[in-house]
């Protein structure tokens, strides 16, 4: 059975969604159980895959038994295995969280279709990660995107539906530009298989079509990952989506788009093309740097907590892109570690925001006064998550920052270091604001100072249920564990980076 793991990780959630819809007429409700079980299975399988890949090299799986390039091929190598574990983990943890929250936010009558779409979204993302075929990637991109559009649309606020529409239009433009890129590669080489393409492309690197296709890939996927000038759809969509969906969108969907971009850059087009033929380094440097600063700067102005988190994703995507622009191993390791770090931290932050909404319905930052005393566990989780995002040592956030800065210095781009640090400072400012309000500002009605001491000592603790508190807590603790045991993600990322850069 183990040899079929690459396909099982994708097909289990997808089939789960079929079964969910098939069973909806039964008396008892199983949709949550099926979804959680499916994502959990996928998570276990992906762990086993990562283990196999790490010990004995890439796994190739021929779908339908047809050898590539004629058939479709699934490839799990050290990079996709790594990202797969991250994404399956986040989607599993989030689905645990979903049990209570969905009923309240989407309505009792919508849970079946909600969970069916959730599984499809997860399955689509896994499919993007493991596929070794450019067109197959497009198909799974569309599965996950379509599910994403609809799920954003059921957000509680009225405007969510408009956000969903804008997301759909821009997402489709991005995907279609990607498709044109695929077409141009196809007409120049006659193949769609990534490994085959990377064999055929070097001979025609100078061709204008190939360069144009590269530009289309980058622009299309940049739209999907909301890189700076194309970020317009993200804050609305991520900020207004239901609280179960925001973490998936911010932690998985855009990360997977980033993954796809790196896949296209390094596996299809080789590093030789990216760094020598086209001015990708300069473009990424500019794009990433500006994204970091502008993203962080825009975040400062937000008054809604989910919107703030959403804007911060724009800046964080900049980090990932920036790591590519150094064209060296260290920078790439930074990017890859940041994928992991951002995924778990941002997901946990969004989940805490979700339990806040579940419990109180508040999203305005200014109304969070005194929350630290009412929901201490959730808010502690939020605080640690925020520290991780800032990049305080002993969290994974620090590891990626460290590697990125070293990568910049190694590449001789010392002027990037202040940019990275400035962005970290801006992060500190906007998260610090929230933390201060949550913990140290008391409600006006309750009074402050030490004159009315007895009063807020006794404030009744009103923590969210365990199933809402635990998931973000797990993610945050992982960030700490892997911040201390950083050699684990770093070793994995180093292996992935060596593979992408074609180094021994």
């Amino acid at each position, binding site marked *: 059975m183990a040899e079929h793991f690459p396909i099982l990780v994708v097909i289990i959630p997808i089939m789960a969604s079929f079964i969910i819809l098939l069973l909806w007429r039964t008396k008892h409700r199983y949709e949550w159980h099926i979804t959680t079980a499916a994502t959990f299975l996928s998570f276990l399988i992906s762990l086993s895959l990562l283990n196999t890949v790490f010990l004995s090299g890439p796994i190739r799986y021929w779908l339908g038994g047809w050898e590539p390039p004629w058939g479709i091929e699934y490839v799990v190598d050290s990079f996709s295995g790594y990202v797969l574990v991250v994404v399956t983990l986040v989607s599993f943890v989030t689905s645990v969280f979903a049990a209570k929250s969905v009923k309240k936010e989407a309505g009792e009558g919508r849970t079946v279709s909600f969970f069916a779409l959730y599984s499809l979204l997860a399955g689509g993302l896994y499919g993007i990660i493991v596929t070794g075929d450019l067109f197959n990637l497009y198909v799974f991109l569309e599965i996950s995107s379509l599910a994403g559009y609809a799920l954003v649309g059921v957000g509680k606020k009225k405007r969510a539906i408009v956000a969903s529409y804008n997301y759909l239009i821009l997402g489709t433009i991005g995907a279609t530009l990607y498709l044109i890129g695929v077409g141009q590669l196809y007409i120049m080489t006659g193949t769609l298989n990534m490994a085959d393409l990377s064999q055929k492309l070097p001979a025609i690197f100078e061709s204008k079509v190939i360069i144009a296709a590269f530009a289309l890939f980058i622009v299309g996927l940049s739209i999907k990952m909301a890189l700076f000038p194309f970020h317009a759809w993200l804050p609305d969509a991520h900020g207004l989506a239901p609280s179960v969906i925001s973490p998936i969108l911010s932690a998985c969907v855009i990360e997977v788009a980033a993954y796809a971009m790196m896949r296209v850059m390094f596996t299809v087009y080789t590093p030789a093309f990216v760094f020598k033929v086209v001015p990708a380094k300069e473009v990424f440097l500019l794009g990433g740097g500006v994204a970091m600063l502008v993203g962080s700067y825009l975040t400062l102005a937000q008054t809604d907590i989910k919107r703030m988190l959403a804007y911060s994703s724009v800046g964080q995507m900049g980090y990932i892109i920036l790591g590519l622009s150094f064209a060296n191993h260290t920078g790439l390791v930074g990017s890859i570690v940041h994928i992991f770090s951002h995924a778990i931290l941002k997901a946990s932050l969004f989940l805490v925001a979700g339990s806040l909404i579940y419990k109180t319905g508040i999203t305005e930052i200014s109304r969070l006064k005194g929350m630290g005393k009412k929901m201490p566990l959730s808010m502690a989780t939020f605080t640690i998550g925020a520290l991780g995002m800032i990049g*305080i040592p002993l969290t994974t956030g620090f590891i990626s920052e460290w590697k990125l800065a070293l990568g910049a210095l190694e590449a001789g781009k010392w002027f990037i270091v202040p940019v990275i640090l400035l962005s970290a400072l801006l992060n500190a400012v906007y998260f610090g604001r929230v933390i201060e309000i949550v913990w140290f500002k008391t409600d006006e009605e309750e009074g402050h*100072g030490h004159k009315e001491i007895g009063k807020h000592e006794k404030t009744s603790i009103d923590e969210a249920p365990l199933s809402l508190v635990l998931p973000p807590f797990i993610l945050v603790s992982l960030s700490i564990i892997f911040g201390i*045991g950083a*050699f684990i993600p770093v070793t994995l990322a180093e292996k992935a980076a060596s593979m992408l850069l074609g180094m021994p």
Partner: protein
Amino acid sequence: METVKSIAPICALLVPLIAIPFIALAGQRRPNVREFWTILASVIMFLIVASMLPRVQGGEVIEYQLLTLFPGLDLNFRVDAFGLFFGLVASFLWIITSFYSIGYMRSFNEHAQTRYYICFAISLFGALGVAFAANLITILIFYEILTLSTYPLVIHEETPEAIKGARRYLTYLLGTSIAFNLPAIFLTYTVAQTLEFSNAGILAGKASPLMIAVIFILFIAGIGKSAMMPFHSWLPAAMVAPTPVSALLHAVAVVKAGVFTVLRVVFHVFGIDLLSEIGLGTALAYFASFTIIVASIMALKQDNLKLRLAYSTVSQLSYIVLGASLLSGKGMMGGILHIVMHAFGKITLFFCAGSILIAVKRKNISEMSGIGKKIPITMFAFFLGALSIIGFPPFGGFLSKWYLVLGSLEANQIPILIVILTSSFLNGAYFLPIVYRAFFGELDEKLNDAHEASSWVVVPLVLTALISMVLFFYPQPFWRLAALTVKGLTGG
């Protein structure tokens, strides 16, 4: 100098961490149990730290490798004479401050005391970690832990001005650390390929003088806790904290962690040979002198007692940096000794300020006329503490200043000598009037029924005042550690 492996440093570090769950469990409902744990933890920690003294005095260096984050980034601990020196001061004063805290917090019936004690324990963990860190990354980690764990202490009152002050506190400390300290570490790593401290310095011969100077400036600016101008204004702002916090953290743990880090960087990253070769030591010395004078003058203008103490701290911290930057044996000796001398003197003064606040509910110096008659013990202790800071014999402060003077003569820096003397004069000018006013001023009638604070508060401050006198006569443990440090650095 031999190195031995031992888990003693780890044990010492773990003590406050282990204490935290106990403190939290005891919680608000059983304050006595909670405070018992605090005191027990502080005593155990001190004993463990002190147990390392004989071995370190015998010239050994205790090392422990905790873990490797990833290749090139290790969490290592190393107890040498200098680290132990700081560790002893911090852990000993924690005991005294714990007693004082109990009295102070109970007198005011403060809220959120559990949070207070927990954060206190974490800060001590941070401070001790700074003392025992073996490389730049470890020191940075504990430095940040210290910053973050003191933030809830500073903001403790939760009043608007507390929030404002704490915001400034965090902005300065975290901001400088991220903006300057981190890039300095990045550059160091790129240049030297290692971050481990070494007696000879790790940067020597690895980079151009310009690069060295850039890294040096980044480090000095990045270690905001040393309160060098222009990054000093967080310290007065942090005075919104409860007095025990100001006393232990802003006279000892936090600020001393700052200067300790500066000294570590100067001694063990750059190395004194490299610095004197490039002339950066002298530059730093003049920079520190500037801070000494300006801060002293600013202290003169303050009416709020704690603010005046804060500015005095700013100025005194620069003595330490000044001593180190003289790069002469005597000067370094003076700087290192000043860490302990100033700690005991200044903590006495802060304790007194807290005691005054409890007893007469006054914060401003102008309102303290005649209180000496009502609270004579406190004010006398204040007097002793002030004399120690000014540098009168027979107080500990004299010893360190004497070495500083000798050091400046040794380095042929007459201007520095003048600075030290002028500043001592200024110290007198801003402390002695307080004492004079307290004993000989007209007493406000409202204070007629004022009396000394509880013995929980008074005993610790008397104790510290006496110790700062004892240190003049018996400075051996600290003196020997300082001498060992200097010997290791100068290689003779």
